C-alpha cells in the first residue's frame, strides 16, 4: 500500500485547481460527475477524502479501486448527497450537489441508479416489490411498473425468486436484487458500490457484461470494486484511491496489487 501518485492525475488536478474551473471547457465532452478539490472529514475527525479532483465525462465506464477504507464509498456518498463534502464542490449531471436545496435532492437521486454496498433492501417486501418500490415512490404510473420490473429481474436472473423475501435469498441473490433496483428506472448514471462482492465469478461476469452493455447505450457507469480480475481484463478507466487521495487515474488501467 505505497503511495504511487501517477503523474497524469497529479497534473490534471493541479491544472483544474489553478484555473478553479469546475465546469468543462467548450468542446470537452460534458462531465456527468465532477469533483473539485473535495475533502471529506467525518464528524468524528476521520478524513476519508483529501483534495480529490475527478471528472467523469458522459458515457464513461470507470472503475474506482483502492484498499479497504480508502474512501470509495465516501466518494459515492458525496455523489448522491448522502454526505456533504467538508470542502470543495461536487457536480452530478449539472447539479451542484453540495448546494442543492433539500427538496431538490430526490431529483438528483432519481437520475442515478445506485447499488449499495450493503444492498439496503426492505426486509418486509419481496424481490419484485423491492424493485418496483423504486418506481412507485418516484411516481411512475402503475401500468408501466410491472413490465419494467419483470424485464430487469430477467436481466439479473431473478425471475424465479421474484416472490421471495430478502431473508429468503442467498447473498448473491440479494446483491442482484439491489442491482435490479438500480437499473429499473433507466438512469443516465449508474453508481455501483462493490456490486459483485457476493457473486460467484460467473454471475459477476454476467453483471459486468450487463453494465458494459448498458454503458454502450450511453449510460455512464462508476463502479467501486475489489474484483482485480474484472478490472484487469477489461482495460477500462481506473481511478485508484488510497488513504483518501487519488493516486492513479489511467484510461486503460489494471488492478495493481497495492490497490
Amino acid at each position, binding site marked *: 500500500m505505497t503511495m504511487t501518485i501517477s503523474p497524469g492525475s497529479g497534473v490534471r488536478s493541479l491544472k483544474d485547481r489553478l484555473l478553479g474551473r469546475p465546469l468543462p471547457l467548450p468542446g470537452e465532452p460534458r462531465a456527468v460527475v465532477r469533483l473539485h478539490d473535495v475533502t471529506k472529514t467525518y464528524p468524528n475527525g476521520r478524513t476519508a477524502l483529501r483534495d480529490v479532483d475527478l471528472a467523469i465525462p458522459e458515457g464513461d465506464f470507470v472503475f474506482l479501486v483502492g484498499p479497504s477504507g480508502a474512501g470509495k464509498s465516501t466518494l459515492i456518498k458525496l455523489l448522491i448527497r448522502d454526505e456533504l463534502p467538508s470542502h470543495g464542490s461536487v457536480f452530478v449531471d449539472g447539479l451542484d450537489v453540495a448546494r442543492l436545496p433539500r427538496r431538490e435532492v*430526490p431529483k438528483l437521486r432519481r437520475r442515478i441508479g445506485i447499488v449499495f454496498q450493503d444492498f439496503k433492501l426492505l426486509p418486509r417486501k419481496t424481490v419484485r416489490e423491492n424493485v418496483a*418500490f423504486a418506481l412507485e*415512490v418516484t411516481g411512475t404510473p402503475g401500468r408501466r411498473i410491472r413490465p419494467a420490473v419483470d424485464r430487469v429481474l430477467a436481466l439479473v436472473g431473478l425471475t424465479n425468486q421474484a416472490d421471495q423475501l430478502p431473508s429468503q435469498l442467498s447473498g448473491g441473490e440479494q446483491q442482484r436484487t439491489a442491482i435490479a433496483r438500480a437499473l429499473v428506472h433507466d438512469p443516465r448514471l449508474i453508481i455501483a458500490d462493490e456490486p459483485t462482492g457476493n457473486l460467484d465469478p460467473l454471475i459477476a461476469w454476467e453483471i459486468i457484461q450487463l453494465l458494459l452493455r448498458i454503458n454502450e447505450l450511453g449510460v455512464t457507469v462508476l463502479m467501486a470494486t475489489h474484483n482485480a480480475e474484472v478490472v484487469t481484463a477489461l482495460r477500462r478507466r481506473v481511478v485508484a484511491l488510497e488513504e483518501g487521495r487519488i493516486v492513479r487515474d489511467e484510461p486503460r488501467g489494471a488492478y495493481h496489487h497495492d490497490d
Partner: protein
Amino acid sequence: MLRFLAFSLRRAWQGFWRNALMSLAATATMTLMLVLLAGFWILQAGLLAGLEFVEQKVEVVADLRDDAPAAEIDALRRRLLAEPGVRSVDYVSKEEALARFRERLAAQGEEDLTRYLDENPLRASLEVKLADPRVAGEITDRLRNERIVESVIDIENLVDRVLTVTNILRMAGAVVLVVVGLIVLFIVVNTIRLAVLARADEIEIMRLVGASDAFIRWPFVFEGAFVGLLGSLVTLGLLGLAAEPIGRFLFDFFRILPLQLGSLARDVAIVVLAAGLGLGTVGSWISVRTYLLR
C-alpha cells in the same frame, strides 16, 4: 395527483397489514385512549349539566306582609319578572306555605309540630327563581326595599357557597379533561413514534432511491389516520353498546334529559372521531418529520 393519492393509500394499507402486530397494538392503544377521553368528556358534560341543575335551584324568597294587597303583589311579581337573570316568580299563599312545611317535615321524618299550632304562623311569599345565580344579591336588596315585603331570607352566603363549589367543580372538570387529553395525546403520539421508529430503515431507503418527501410522508400519515379512524370506530362501537347504561347513569346522577343526551352523543362522536383522526394524522406527521429533516 390522483395517482399519488392512490399510491399513498395503497402503501398505507400495505404498511398497516405488513406490520400487523404493531399496527394493531397502536390501534388498541388508540382505542383505549379514546375510550378514556370519551369517558371523561361524558363525565364532564354530566357534571356541567348537574351543576346547571343545582344552580337553577337557587331562589330568593321574599316573605310578604300579611296585609299586602293582591294588586301590589302582582305588580311586584311582574316587575321582578322583567329583571335580567330572573327565570320565574311564584306566589306562595300562607296555606300553601304551611302545607309545604308539613310535607318537608314528614319527608325528613321529623315530628309534625304544626298540629300543636292554633293559627298559621307562616307568611305568604314570592319565590324568585333565578336563571343566573349571580344576581341573587341584587334581587335580595331590591326586595328588601319593597314596602309589602316583610323580610327576605339572606341566601347570599348560600349562593356564594354554591357558586364557589360549582365553579371549582367546573374548573376541576375542565382541568381533568385537559390533563386526560394531554395524556391521550402523548401516549398516542408516542405509540405511533415507536411504530415509525421500527421502520426507520424503510424511510432511509425511500430517501436514497429518490422518493420525494411527500411520497415518504403521506403513506405514513394515511396509515396514522387509518389507525386513528379504526380506533375511533371501535371506540364509538363500544360506546354504542354501552349507551343505555351510560344514559341511565347520566339521567339518574346528573339529571341530564334525553334531549340533552342526543346532543351529548353527537358531541362525543365528533370528539372521538376528530381526536382519533387528528391524533393519528398529526402523530405520524410528527414522527416522520424527524426523519425527513435530516
